[in-house]
């Protein structure tokens, strides 16, 4: 039985009961509990089922390394899968359900897999599910998806909020144990801006549990005094419930603060992601105890020795009345002593070493505890719970010498420093054979931009397992880190630590050392992913000799705990099987985050309405209030059409096109890019940027221009207006404004830095409205203030003036084929101007139109659209735009590329119009079918559709496309693909479908 002890724990307050539920059972814990300690206090040892074999699993650890205790937490909007019970603080009303079982935790059908384990060896999925290929999609994948997966995906939107926090620090200390606190003390006293992050709710780490003495005082007293001192320092920030999640290049560190997981508020702030730029990082992250690999070491009740005493000391919880301790080191004797002193039974300490005569073993013996040296556990007895252990000689093959009944096994295979954060950014490790652990090699530290180390490991995380060395190492690391950042005020004395002297451990990677296959195939390494000693050995036999390959083949360390307690044991087995030394096999790569962090914390505020910025023009409010059906164009939302009454989008688009061609249409063109290019060399510069000549454009006039990349591909287009001698205004596409601005700056800053040109992006300074249609001039003239007659403002010219009461620049340009003006006013006047046009336009049948009507009208005129007719592989010649390629200019971007043989190839597909024989609309992107098949057995093609619409003006389908030698094949009928139907026949025609002579716009 696991139960609450009479004496209280360090972290709990028994006078404050906390109600919670597990799998629907109402239980009671107390304030200060973790979910793990509360479950154990209620004798709920079984917390989940393993991933592959659905074996019953209990809590094995007391901290972040826990592989088994993962639960679904909360319901509905607060639901969260894979919550680790050891790091989940209990709160009133907490609801948890266990994972990965069907139909119930106690009786799980999937547990049959454990009896099939002979047929589910390492690499089973790779071997089994290879062939036949169609089985994967229809049989294997659905099966695996159903049987796999620990937590469930949330079904409802998360109700909580999340945020980021950006700071800089001189010294960031990760880990608030005694080494971390000592480092913070030294750094703080030195005057450095210091931040300390501790992942749990408590400072001091495990020193108080392990009975460390510092400066002659119990560790707990020193911790309290140190915290008080640090709190007084304005240059020190202390943060609990904040995990150092990852260390990245340039001293960037992510801290994951669980702001309210311990006291949730509906809709409240849940997690905060600290984005720290630290000059120096001290990783004082402690160590993780390793399990021992003996048969059925995965039964609920087999627990890490350190965790057993954590539960007693910190939470007042015992895991069993009779605990057998099994160890290869002195430290685990602390557990036996703690239990004995708490009044619990310790039938035996099974020590794999042949001798155990250190201070702690002697103390254990003095307390009357039986110590068996040279022994090991052959197997653990029990089903869903430990009932006893079979003892054998460690040196043998597992012949049972004796069975001891017990309800808990406390195991310790030694300690592994937590080197994750040290390693994230390239810190290297050495194998310390004496202590059987990988520890940081401070001579091969992660280095920053200056080539100098920016991470220091300290304390236990640096391989100093004992208090004296650990705390001194922490203090020294803090002082050194502060000094590197230029802070070397006199710090106080380094704290002095002491604890019991320990004899060396003896590495034990398998128990007993000659264990039979039967025992090895029940000796778990990875408890969450069900990887056993026999699986790693099989992987090695099958040739997966690299630790990275063996990991992926067996899935060792690939579960959500990332192998915190299994990796070292696994690679030791691999090394043994390969007959190699452990350091020669090496470790797998440590990658951030240290433990999983919430996706929402990464998103931060980018959720709901703030998911993405939506750019709005000054007229957006009117659009939304008047039926706009939006489409995204970059980060803008542009009205695709304005829906009236019950009409469909298609009907709205047709109405808008017909009205613009017969009365007056109004388009919000504010999103078009507007770049001012100015300076003595601006003309020369624009002649390089555009394929046609811009330097000769007279002041007051407009010219349509094309821009190519240096590889000759069409990149952007737009109308350029000459403003004055030194100044041009270049219109770009909506999506091109920022890109072309950056493109111009790139050339000016990196290539032609000596040219005198400045560029300014004034896209948002101006609201721009296109007034389009036969009544356009009448409407604008009704506003008064400017002469917009054909004579005063001919096609492709502009004029400044006051239109009505508005400061306006009027361009006489047309993208629709109609009489058309584009009027730019200051953005602050944009909405008023729009409203004024609507009011004055009532007499002229005015109707706003959206981007689809714009697209149709330009297609009826055979005008190309960047992004439709172009896709990054199209050159102007493909679109019959040779007229826009200046022959007079010595150079422009793309000119030389156009001379390449492939670019000059007469066989390139070229732009034509397409008309179906039956008047239907061609499918977008359809291919023109050619005879024969290619080398891959696919049908040959001779062209494709780039734009296709129903023309409400012509009342039939019209399209543009690129066709092999298209312009030479006018009148020819070719077939286009039609998915799910017969090919469609279309005739090659002139792309200008409407008003070929331009009479409509030239009035």
């Amino acid at each position, binding site marked *: 039985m696991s139960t609450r002890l009479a004496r209280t724990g360090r972290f709990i307050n028994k006078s404050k009961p906390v109600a919670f539920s597990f799998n629907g059972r109402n239980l009671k814990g107390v304030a200060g509990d973790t979910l793990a300690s509360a479950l154990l206090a209620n004798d709920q040892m079984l917390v989940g089922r393993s991933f592959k074999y659905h074996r019953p699993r209990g809590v094995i650890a007391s901290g972040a390394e826990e592989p088994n205790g993962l639960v679904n937490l909360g319901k509905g909007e607060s639901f969260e899968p894979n919550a680790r019970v050891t790091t989940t603080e209990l709160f009133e009303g907490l609801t948890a359900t266990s994972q990965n079982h069907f139909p119930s935790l106690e009786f799980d059908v999937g547990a049959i897999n454990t009896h099939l384990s002979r047929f589910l060896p390492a690499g089973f999925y790779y071997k089994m599910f290879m062939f036949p290929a169609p089985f994967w999609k229809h049989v294997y994948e659905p099966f695996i998806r159903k049987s796999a997966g620990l937590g469930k995906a949330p079904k409802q939107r998360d109700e909580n909020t999340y945020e980021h926090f950006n700071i800089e620090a001189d010294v960031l200390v990760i880990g608030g144990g005694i080494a971390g606190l000592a480092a913070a003390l030294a750094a703080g006293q030195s005057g450095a801006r210091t931040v300390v992050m501790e992942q749990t709710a408590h400072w001091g780490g495990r020193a108080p549990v392990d009975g460390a003495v510092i400066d002659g005082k119990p560790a707990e007293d020193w911790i309290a005094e140190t915290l008080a001192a640090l709190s007084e320092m304005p240059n020190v920030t202390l943060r609990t419930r904040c995990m150092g999640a990852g260390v990245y290049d340039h001293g960037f560190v992510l801290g994951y603060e669980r702001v309210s997981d311990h006291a949730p508020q509906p809709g409240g702030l849940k997690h905060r992601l600290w984005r720290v730029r630290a000059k120096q990082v001290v990783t004082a992250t402690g160590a993780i105890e390793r399990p021992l690999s003996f048969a059925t070491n995965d039964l609920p009740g087999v627990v890490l020795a350190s965790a057993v005493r954590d539960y007693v000391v910190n939470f007042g919880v015992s895991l069993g009345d009779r605990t057998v301790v099994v160890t290869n080191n002195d430290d685990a004797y602390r557990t036996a002593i703690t239990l004995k002193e708490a009044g619990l039974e310790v039938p035996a300490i099974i020590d794999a070493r042949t001798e155990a005569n250190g201070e702690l073993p002697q103390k254990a013996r003095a307390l009357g505890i039986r110590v068996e040296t040279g022994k090991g556990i052959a197997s653990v007895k029990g089903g869903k719970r430990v009932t006893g252990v079979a003892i054998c000689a460690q040196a043998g093959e597992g012949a049972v010498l004796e069975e001891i009944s017990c309800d808990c096994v406390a195991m310790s295979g030694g300690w592994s420093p937590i080197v994750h954060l040290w390693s994230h950014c390239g810190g290297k490790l050495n194998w310390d054979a004496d202590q059987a652990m990988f520890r940081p090699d401070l001579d091969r530290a992660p280095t920053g931009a200056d080539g100098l180390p920016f991470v220091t490991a300290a304390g236990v995380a640096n391989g100093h397992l004992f208090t004296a060395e650990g705390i001194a190492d922490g203090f020294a690391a803090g002082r050194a880190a502060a000094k590197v950042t230029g802070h070397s005020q006199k710090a106080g004395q380094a704290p002095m630590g002491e604890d019991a002297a320990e004899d060396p451990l003896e590495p034990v990677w398998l128990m007993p050392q000659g264990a039979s296959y039967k025992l090895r195939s029940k000796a778990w390494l990875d408890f969450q992913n069900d990887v056993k000693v026999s699986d790693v050995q099989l992987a090695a036999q099958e040739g997966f000799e690299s630790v990275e390959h063996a990991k992926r083949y067996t899935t060792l360390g690939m579960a959500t705990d990332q192998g915190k307690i299994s990796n070292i044991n696994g690679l030791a087995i691999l090394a043994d099987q390969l007959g190699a030394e452990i350091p020669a096999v090496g470790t797998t790569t440590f990658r951030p985050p240290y433990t999983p962090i919430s996706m929402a914390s990464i998103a931060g505020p980018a959720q709901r309405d703030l998911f993405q*910025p939506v750019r709005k023009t000054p007229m957006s409010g009117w659009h939304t209030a008047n039926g706009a059906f939006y489409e995204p164009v970059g980060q803008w939302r542009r009205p695709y059409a304005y829906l009236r009454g019950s009409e469909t989008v298609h009907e709205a688009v047709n109405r808008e096109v017909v009205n613009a061609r017969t009365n007056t249409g109004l388009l919000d063109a504010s999103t078009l890019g507007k770049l001012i290019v100015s300076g003595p060399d601006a003309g020369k510069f624009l002649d390089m940027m555009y394929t046609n000549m811009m330097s000769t454009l007279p002041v007051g006039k407009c010219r349509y221009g094309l821009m190519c990349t240096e590889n000759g591909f069409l990149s952007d287009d737009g109308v350029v207006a000459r403003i004055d001698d030194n100044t041009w205004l270049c219109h770009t596409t909506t999506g091109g404004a920022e890109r072309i601005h950056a493109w111009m700056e790139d050339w000016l800053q990196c290539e032609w830095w000596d040219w005198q040109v400045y560029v300014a992006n004034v896209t948002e300074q101006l609201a721009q409205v296109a007034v389009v249609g036969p009544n356009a001039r009448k409407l604008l003239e009704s506003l008064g203030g400017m002469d917009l007659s054909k004579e005063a403002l001919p096609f492709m010219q502009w004029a400044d003036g006051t239109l009505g009461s508005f400061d306006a620049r009027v361009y006489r340009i047309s993208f629709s084929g109609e009489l058309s003006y584009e009027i730019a006013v200051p953005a602050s006047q944009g909405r008023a101007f729009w409203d004024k046009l609507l009011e004055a336009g009532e007499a002229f049948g005015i109707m706003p139109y959206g981007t689809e009507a714009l697209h149709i009208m330009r297609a009826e005129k055979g005008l190309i659209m960047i992004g439709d007719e172009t896709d990054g592989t199209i050159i102007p010649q493909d679109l019959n735009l040779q007229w826009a390629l200046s022959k007079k200019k010595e150079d422009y971007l793309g000119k030389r590329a156009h001379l390449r043989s492939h670019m000059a190839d007469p066989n390139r597909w070229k732009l034509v119009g397409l008309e179906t024989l039956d008047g239907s609309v061609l499918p977008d992107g359809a291919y023109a079918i050619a005879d024969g098949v290619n080398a891959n057995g696919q049908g040959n093609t001779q062209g494709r559709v780039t734009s296709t619409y129903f023309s409400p003006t012509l009342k039939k389908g019209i399209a543009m496309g690129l066709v092999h030698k298209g312009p030479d094949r006018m009148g020819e009928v070719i077939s286009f693909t039609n998915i799910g139907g017969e090919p469609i026949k279309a005739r090659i025609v002139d792309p200008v479908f409407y008003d070929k002579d331009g009479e409509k716009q030239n009035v």
Partner: protein
Amino acid sequence: MFNAVSALDHRTFAGDVTIREDGLRGMISLRGDMSLAKLKSVCTSLTGVAFPAQGQANSDGAQGLAWMSPDEVLVMVAHDAVDDALAKIAKALKGQHHLAVNVSDARAVLIVEGPYVRDVIAKLAPVDLHPDAFGPGSFRRSRLGQVAAAFWMRDDQSVAVICFRSVADYAFDLLKAAAQGGPVGHFPDS
């Protein structure tokens, strides 16, 4: 002008940290040789504030100067004084290669004020807002969340933010969310 409206038309969020859109402000983007005495003097005479050092903004009410880059300064004047200011700049820098352009309406100005204003900005911008590094007059061109923004500290509890007009809604709501998240308790004076 009666037709002119700022992006958010003085929208306000009232909380422990308040956010208000500050209405129309005249802004001129001036690029040129920042070492020119003529350039500096026209800037200071237009605004009444000293020419700013790198990373600094000097402001007095709606008037001010902000250091944008080694060849750019932002000149802030009253919204209806821009044309006049442009004319004065053109006169002062006649014959000198420069670009002065009215960007008043391309922008929105948001004022963020309150005891934990540093926290609010630090939640959104990758900038060191520690009082040792960012005090009154400090100015940065950076980002807020996913959009470009510039901001400077007016006093210890007040920050002025400039963003593009099209994303003023987003910036306002983002600042509001950051303010509603409450203080973090990291910076010494907050």
